[in-house]
């Protein structure tokens, strides 16, 4: 079913015939699942709908006009840059318009002042290459180099390279949003000039409403331009090498290096994180799940399981590797200094350096994130958390214990603790727990586990990035802040009173729980009978 007919015709005249479609085959082409991030879950099956139409604007002005037409004719819409983020970035109601931003490909770089200005269609690998040619680098989120930088920063984007800069929103400078009423809101220095080089102010910083931590998933309008900080790198551009599937970046050995250390235990890994931060050296530190290493070694899925099923809880527990990147930002001499400091730390902690490839396969430019789906076919990060190292490592244990109860359908991981890394030079500890399953199994357990992690966090006093639209707001809201959800809903009410932009986000997960019988048993909080969003978007 297409979108409202008059709206379709008006939008067609705005963008031209070749940039709008409601053909059924095209609409199916934009379907979220059944594969992909967080697909193969109940959320995907219950909440996503095929779009009614797709439009591809290429200017902010067109987007404004489109949003105003949508507002006038009651057409719900969802902004879409790559569609990679799974069901949450696809329509949840019938006859919605996908506003596909891929044609917004503007890119500028100010190498001297370490920032770029991009539109939503620009992805990280493009940005990273240009930055590296200019002596800079960006943090390519774990989602992969194929993600839209704008979308990733509005949502969440972490990598071991976040070690120095940390929070993704720190990288956002001036930007431009088209708000749900079609008006343009410019933030940072763009609010008062043409150059988006600075992000704060004027006065209170409205960038605070952008990211409903994690993201508001486009439910407060569309970001059409963003200036993003780049970080000073070192002068040698890493060169790509190899033939697919064995491609990697060759690192300039005297300036950039990954080092792997076998550590005596998890506690020493935590200490390594802390000591590295205290020493204020390094470019990245991370402990990755052991099965990621198996993915990297494996030729294919079967090979992965051959490798992985040799492990046991004991072997996983005992195999403690921390991975550290050194970057010679200043000079080779500085690089050597960092290495000596690191060696001192490792000597104190009993870390033993292992042979490490002089290349980067994962973090600078590539989409190794796609490899997450190799093992079981389905994957989602069930939580990503940023607080302290002490919370991170504790939380990993809690997750591991909870996950055990849901295995199967979750993949047997022999109680691997998940992914840790240090951010903001050790002031923040990051932890991400990823879950994998085969979506051809009964996946009710996957959906339940997802919500149970939220309850576990609340009970144990853990902070989590997956609040707002990612978990039932009626569960998390009263427990964080408290009542952060009330402010989000008030904001939504103020700027998008009809909920035209991506309904019913941010209450989508609450709605999912309400609609899904297998979620009743985990719904131990007290949601309202009627969720507070307009009736017109409610499934009858």
């Amino acid at each position, binding site marked *: 079913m297409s979108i409202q007919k008059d709206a379709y015709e008006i939008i067609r005249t705005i963008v031209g015939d070749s940039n709008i479609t409601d053909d059924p085959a*095209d609409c199916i082409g934009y379907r979220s699942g059944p594969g992909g991030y967080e697909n193969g879950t109940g959320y995907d099956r219950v909440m996503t709908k095929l779009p009614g139409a797709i439009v591809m604007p290429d200017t902010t002005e067109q987007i404004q006009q489109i949003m105003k037409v949508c507002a006038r004719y009651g057409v719900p819409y969802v902004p879409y840059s790559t569609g990679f983020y799974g069901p949450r970035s696809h329509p949840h109601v019938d006859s919605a318009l996908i506003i596909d931003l891929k044609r917004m490909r503007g890119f500028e770089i100010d190498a001297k002042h370490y920032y770029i200005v991009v539109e939503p269609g620009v992805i990280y690998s493009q940005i990273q290459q240009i930055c590296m040619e200019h002596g800079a680098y960006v943090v390519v989120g774990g989602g992969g180099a194929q993600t839209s930088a704008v979308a990733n920063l509005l949502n969440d984007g972490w990598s071991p390279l976040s070690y120095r800069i940390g929070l993704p929103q720190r990288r956002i400078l001036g930007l431009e949003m088209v708000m749900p009423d079609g008006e343009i809101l410019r933030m940072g220095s763009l609010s008062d000039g043409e150059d988006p080089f600075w992000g704060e102010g004027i006065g209170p910083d409205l960038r605070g409403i952008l990211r409903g931590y994690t993201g508001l998933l486009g439910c407060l309008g569309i970001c059409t331009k963003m200036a993003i900080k780049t970080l000073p790198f070192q002068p040698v551009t890493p060169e790509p090498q190899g033939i*697919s599937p064995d491609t990697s970046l060759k690192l300039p050995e005297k300036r950039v290096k990954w080092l792997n250390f076998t550590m005596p235990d998890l506690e020493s890994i935590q200490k390594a994180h802390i000591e590295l931060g205290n020493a204020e050296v390094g470019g990245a530190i991370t402990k990755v799940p052991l099965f990621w290493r198996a993915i990297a070694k494996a030729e294919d899925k079967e090979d992965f399981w051959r490798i992985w099923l040799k492990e046991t809880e004991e072997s996983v527990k005992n195999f403690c590797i921390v991975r550290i990147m050194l970057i010679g930002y200043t000079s080779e001499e500085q690089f050597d200094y960092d290495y000596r400091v690191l060696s001192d730390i490792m000597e104190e902690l009993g870390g033993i350096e292992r042979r490490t490839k002089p290349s980067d396969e994962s973090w600078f430019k590539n*989409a190794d994130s796609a490899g997450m789906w190799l093992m079981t076919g389905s994957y989602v990060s069930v939580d990503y958390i940023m607080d302290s190292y002490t919370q991170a490592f504790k939380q990993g244990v809690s997750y591991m214990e909870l996950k055990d109860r849901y295995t199967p359908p979750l993949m047997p991981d022999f109680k691997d603790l998940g992914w840790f890394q240090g951010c903001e030079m050790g002031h923040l500890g990051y932890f991400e727990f990823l879950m994998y399953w*085969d979506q051809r199994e009964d996946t009710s357990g996957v959906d339940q586990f997802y919500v149970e992690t939220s309850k576990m966090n609340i009970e144990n006093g853990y902070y989590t990035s997956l609040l707002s639209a990612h978990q039932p707001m009626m569960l998390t809201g009263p427990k964080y802040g408290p009542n952060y959800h009330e402010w989000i809903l008030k904001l939504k009410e103020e700027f998008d009173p009809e909920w035209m932009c991506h309904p019913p986000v941010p209450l989508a997960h609450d709605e999912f729980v309400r609609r899904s019988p297998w979620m009743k048993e985990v719904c131990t909080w007290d949601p309202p009978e009627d969720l507070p969003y307009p009736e017109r978007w409610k499934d009858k």
Partner: protein
Amino acid sequence: MSVIDKIHQDRFDTPKTPFALDIEDLSNFEYDMQHCIKCKGCYWVDHTYMPGMENAVRCPSNLWKEFDSYGAFGKMRIGLHLLNGELEWSDHLLELIYADPLCGACDVGCKRNLDLETGLTLEALRVKAVQDGAGPMPGQKKVIANIRETGNIYGASASRHSWMTEEIRVAEKADTVYFPGCLSSYQKKELAQSTAMLLNRSGIDFMLLPEESCCGNVAFSVGDIAAAREIAMKNVEKMRNTGAKTLVVSCAECYRMWKVDYPKLLKIRTADLGFEVKHIIEAAHDAWQEGKLSLRNPVNLQITYHDSCGVSRLCDDWEPYEGERGWMGTIEPGLTRRRGRQGLYQITRELLENIPGLELKEMQRTRENALCCAGGRGTSFDFPELSAFSATERLREAESTGAEVLVTACPWCVSNFDSVKPEEDPFEIADIAQILLKAAGQEGGTV
């Protein structure tokens, strides 16, 4: 008890599903379509090689028209709905399925990280179109009819051997058969001539196939399996009957067809064909390494090289497969996936870089990241705009290297590039056989 058995015993309950790498049944690729993650590895240049804002994409279809449905990731979703009978064939759907040169960029891109058979799925979608009576496209149907009637894609009645010149030595019987293909036989004769002369210079005696006829690339590529299989059977039999050990081709489409898709159609391994299939690049490289071909004549040109799809992403040996998919999607027995590793990248560059005076300037999209010109596999007959678009885009990239000549390994590429290049543009298009022949001290073309 194995770990998996124990886990099975405990609680995992995945049923085993039989499947085969058989494009005649789309349901064989249901798992693949269900598990496409929309990472667009099928669309973008390998991120490790991503050059920046320009030359970032290697999917010609999706570069031409930008809705997701034109990309492999869109077609995987569409394929599922077709399989489940949830989508009717329409002109637009046919365009989505057929406006696509099946260049293998998506397959290789996807297989960088996963095991999904994207390329085979797209082939299977075409087969389904034909099975459902919707495909192939009108122009392609005509070509297939031409092959049936005259043994060539043009419907030409002239001899296939009219490209031959007096100076070319053809043996009555030899260990090597040279198969020029329709395009070189009828249109780009200089390419066939250069190849033949190069074989002569390399001391490789060659014969031609008796009653030579089209390799059937278009029939296969558009999903007319019956027609393609008939052609395959006849051609393989003809080749086997010659007793020759090697088939040399100069067309990347023919190369892929003989090496990969004939075994696929005949449900045998490449190794079981009974003869080796080589592109002239391989034959020349072997001869050069053995000292039989000298490439010492200076060729004072700045060139760039376009890795034609048939000799890059698409030419890994074929192996038929039947098995079962079960727990976590694992298959039994195992399978060595075709990830495009056997592309003739290195040997081509070894040859070119060895020629005195020749300077090779690589494009940004090179080797498995090359942008297909979209001239082949039946595309140009019904989607000339796509072919022209992609060739123009690739030509722009080629010229931006500062080279004077674009060299490639397929007459379809040469022809397509020639057709979009403005007449007044001094930039030249050449086949690798012509360059190698020149380096061997003989003229054989316009370069």
